[in-house]
């Protein structure tokens, strides 16, 4: 089949990142894979417009996060009774805290920290200005610090302009 090379490049480059962003939110590999595929399908369906988007990867990521949030509604936490190693506990705790964040903060955290997007690109992907992104990130860090009981976590140095 014929797929625009630009989309193919985006897919091959960004799929692991989008998958991981979705996994961070849900902790469910199957759901994360499905959500990532759904997000890329939506991107391909409107590729002619999206290819000129300032951050198609960011668009796909936020779409995947939306997809995960929707799937999680009314669904039980799947990790609640799977305690394991300290690293796993840390991951579970962090994912649970991420899940409690408002959607826009989730998106900002995923794009900036996970996909390593600078604030400017994160802002472009989210369709907001850079100040708004910084606000989302600051509030997210603050919420995570409180949820994890780690006041030091809220360190603005984590933000990369």
């Amino acid at each position: 089949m014929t797929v625009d090379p630009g989309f193919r490049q985006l897919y091959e480059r960004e799929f692991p990142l989008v998958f991981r962003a979705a996994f961070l939110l849900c902790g469910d590999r199957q759901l994360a894979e499905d959500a990532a595929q759904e997000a890329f399908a939506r991107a391909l369906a409107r590729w002619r417009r999206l290819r000129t988007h300032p951050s198609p990867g960011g668009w796909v990521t936020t779409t995947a996060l939306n997809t995960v949030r929707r799937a999680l509604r009314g669904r039980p936490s799947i990790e609640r009774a799977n305690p394991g190693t300290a690293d796993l506990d840390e991951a579970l705790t962090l994912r649970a805290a991420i899940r409690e964040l408002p959607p826009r903060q989730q998106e900002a955290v995923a794009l900036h920290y996970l996909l390593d997007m600078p604030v400017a690109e994160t802002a472009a992907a989210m369709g907001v200005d850079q100040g708004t992104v910084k606000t989302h990130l600051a509030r997210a860090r603050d919420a995570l610090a409180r949820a994890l009981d780690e006041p030091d976590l809220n360190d603005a140095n984590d933000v990369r302009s």
Partner: protein
Amino acid sequence: MSETPLKERLRAAADAPVPSPTLGPVSRRARILRARRVAGAALATAITVTAITLPLSGLRHLGEQDRSPQPTTESVFGDGRAGFVPRQGWTDLQKNDVNVCTSTESFASSDSPGDPGESTFCTATAGALSPDGIVMAVLIESGPYRWEEPNGNFPERSFPISLQDARIDHNWETQPDPDIPQYLLLGTVAHRWLDVRVYFGRQDPTSEQLAAAQTRLDDLFMNAPASLGGSVAFLPDQGWQTKVDTPPVSDGFATPGDVPVAAWTTNADLPPGDPTNTYPAGPSNDQIAALPAGGIVVAASQTLFTSNPIERTGTYPAHHLTLGLDEFELSSGGQEGLAREDLTQASLSASVMGRPIFVHVWFGTLDVTDELRREAQDALDRLVVVPTPPATDALDRFGIALPLPAGWDGFLYSFGLDANLVASSAPIDDPFDEPVMRRSLSPTDVAIVLSREDWYIRAQLWAPDEPPFEIGPYDRCDGCEVMDGGEISAPGHVLFNHTFTYGGAPFDLYVEFGSEPTQASIDQVNTVLAGLRLEPLTDPAVVVTPEPGTNVVGAIYDGDIDLDVTADTEIRTLSPGWLNASIHVPAGWSGQNGTVAGMQRPESLLTVGSWAFPPGGYCGPLPALQRLPADGALVWIDTYRGGAPGDLEFSPWPDRVVWDASTFVADSSPCVGNGEPAGRGSGVWVKGWSLGGRAFVVHVALGPDAGPDVVANVTAALESFRVG
């Protein structure tokens, strides 16, 4: 740990083996989404790249009728044949399926099929009639396969046709004898153009002749057109391949013809297409990519189904066959997934015979000559569309029915697997653009959006629900987007979202109020929703079967209402059959052991409620929560066997339970609905307590109007909990 940069910690938390990206499913899903967007968008702008103007006005353009199709019954295919029931004194000459003559006298040999001088209307026989003789000729002008609409030449008629409606020609072209008049009856009968000519042996037929002719007319039958394989199709033509395909989907709800269908025809010898890259079935991108310079592909498809008037959407303006190429929107270049720039495309979205279709023409060149246009127009002329039953305002199809209150507006549609219902107390100008309607809701208006999902997300396992379907405080969903539409509700609006499964299908129900709703307005909406009827899925191929998978809850089970302690039970102690636990149920309240059957970890131990609550749920007692009275309360206790999870904190069960924020925290788990407590003192609250070496999770749900007496009953019940 806190010194580790947040970024690294997040990446560690997101670390999981990445599946191998496979583009095939993504591409197919994209094609489905694109087809739907085209179906729902005005005039297929999705494929428009660069509009160019071509001089098409000189092309043949038929179908100027201004009458909307009004089929009367569900279309059923036949063999397309017309004929006469045998009658003594009459001889029939069946020339072919659509051409038959009948006469009181012998047929002339030159009227026989295959004779060089054969006349369609048996005029040779007419010319030799005796004065008392009668010849009748019938031709279905539209052929054995085509369905037609009435027009000026062929006005709508029905059987039996009456000779009194005939136009009488005493002198007429090809008249074989001056004494032979022609009684001409043209009409559209059951969507076919019928041409009936009656000849008498004298210019002034006797009353007996006229009566005999009418009797014979009453013997005329005409079967429904034969099928070309789909509700849209192309008549075959020499040098052109024609195909009708349906995609490999099944749907237990689909009424006949509700499967997405595409028909296409081409004058080119194209390679086999990739069936996974088509939706609906039709030419695939690789086939279009192989189209030679003189090649043409004409495709027509239906992916949208509704019983409601489609013309109101504006997306599918009414058109009549045959479609004129000069009505199409033109563009050049490829399309998504087809990077070929030397193509010319023409497209049209239209309601034809009441059926919303999308017609697409590809030319394998940017230089579309007059000859190519004529060829394409000829192909368009061969388009067959089977009519649909008349449109109705009722919302009842696809296994979904909702009676609407007077003054409400609604629209129900499907793309073949899903089903979508939009209803509102406000007018809905364009059902495909319902966000506009919701944005403009007045403070007293409300809108309902219901979608039966065909989403391929396998993990979408929402909790089951039973009718009556309704919204409650726990469905309030501030900040949510309707159907992931990309925007939250307008300022001042309040959105509720209830996701559930019923009959094997997942449903997404949204209710948006134009202002903060009162309990009365919520009740009013629930009264409307009480009329909602959903049919269970019947096709196992598409039934969503919840499965526990890796999660810690068991199979979903909803039992009958079978309370262990009712409001009238004398013994007020509720005691599960294991663990030796017990709780005192307040007077007038109800209690049940193991309300959420199948939960494995934690297990559902017992539930106490201020009313006769229903059992069941998924990982929480959702049916009960959804019916929580505004002034009611529900208490449920889960427990862990084999030790509590390490990440949960359990403090000793207090002798005295104090109802304040320091004791309980808001329960935002999806197991209690959409996670957001309704505020104003209501909501769901949770606390982990240990007792007798066991770990328990205590949940309390309070309605917004629950008073101190209700809270007192809650705390008293919790204080009565015993183990051992």
